C-alpha cells in the first residue's frame, strides 16, 4: 500500500506530458488539413485517445494511484462505447425497414411555434 501513498510526480514529468499534449494538438490540427476521407476521423480519434490517456495516466495519477480508479473509469468508457455503437446499429439501419429521408422541419412539427 505504501508505494502509492503520496506519490510525488517530478515537475519535469508534468512539463514533458504537457509538451507532448501540445505537440499532439499541433499534429491533429495539421492532419485535419490533409484529406484522408473517413480516415481523418479515425486519426483524429486515435490522437484524442492518446492525449486523453496521457492526461488520465499522469495528470490524474491513474498510473500511480489505486488501480481500482483506472478499472472503474475504463468500465465507464466501455459502457459509453456500447451506448453509442448500439444506438448507431438502430439509426444507421433504419433504411432497411423504411425509406429514411431527411426533410426540412415543417411548422406543424414544431411543439413550440416560432413568434
Amino acid at each position, binding site marked *: *500500500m*505504501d508505494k502509492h*501513498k*503520496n506519490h*510525488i*510526480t517530478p*515537475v519535469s514529468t*508534468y*512539463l514533458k*506530458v*504537457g509538451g507532448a*499534449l*501540445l505537440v499532439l*494538438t499541433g499534429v*491533429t*490540427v495539421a492532419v*485535419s488539413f490533409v*484529406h*484522408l*476521407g*473517413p*480516415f*481523418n*476521423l479515425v486519426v*483524429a*480519434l486515435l*490522437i*484524442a485517445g492518446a*492525449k*486523453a490517456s496521457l*492526461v*488520465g495516466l*499522469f*495528470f*490524474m495519477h491513474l498510473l500511480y*494511484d*489505486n488501480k*481500482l*480508479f483506472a478499472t*472503474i*473509469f475504463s468500465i*465507464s*468508457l466501455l*459502457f*459509453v462505447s456500447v*451506448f*453509442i455503437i448500439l*444506438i*448507431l446499429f438502430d*439509426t*444507421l439501419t433504419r433504411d432497411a425497414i423504411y425509406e429514411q429521408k*431527411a*426533410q*426540412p*422541419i415543417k411548422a406543424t412539427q*414544431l411543439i*413550440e411555434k*416560432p413568434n
Partner: protein
Amino acid sequence: MEHVLKQDTHVAHHFSDAEQQRDSAKLGMWIFLITEVLLFSGLFTAYAVYRAWHPETFINAHKFLNVGLGTLNTVVLITSSVTIALGIRSIQVNRRKQAIGLFIATLVLAAAFLVVKYFEYSHKTHLGQLPGKYYTFTGIEGTDPQVFFSVYFLLTGLHGLHIVFGMAAITWILIRTINNEFSPEYFTPAENVGLYWHLVDLIWIFLFPLLYLIG
C-alpha cells in the same frame, strides 16, 4: 495502535488510516467523474447519430467554426491542466506560495478560455448560426444545418458550464490554500478538484477535433 497515532491529520474513526481515507474520498470523486462522462455521452451520441445521417452538412457547417480560436482554447486548457497539477504538487512538497500562484494562473487560464468562447458565441449569434428554430443563417448547403449548431451549442455550452463550476471549485481550494488548511499530509480536496479540472480538459480534447476538425 501505534501506527494510528502517527497519522497526524483528520483521520475519521471509521478509517483504519489516512491512506484508506484518502482513497475512499478519491473513489467517490471518480464515481462522480464517471457520472459526468455518462452525462456527456448522451450528447456525444447525438453527435454521432446526426453526423452519420448528415455527413455533408457537418462538413459544410464545421467550416464556419474558427479553427484558430479552437486551437488557442485547446492550448489554454492543456496549460491550465499543467498549472493545476503543478499546484497540487507544490502542496505535496509544502510550497504554499508557489501553489497559490499556480492556482491563480489556472483561474486566469480558465477565464481566458471563457473569453475566447464568448467571442465565438457572439460571432455565431450575430450570423444567426444558432440551434433549432433560432437558426437564420443561409450560407450552408446540406440538410438540417441547424442540427449541427444544436449539437455544437449543447456540447460546448455544457462544457462551458463545467469550466464555470471548475473555476468556483478552484477558487475554493485557492482560499483553503491561502488559509493554510492543506499540508503534505492532507490535501485531498485539492487533489479531487484537480481530477475534476483534468476531466473537463479531457472532454475538450475530444470535442475539439470532433467539432472543429471534421476532415
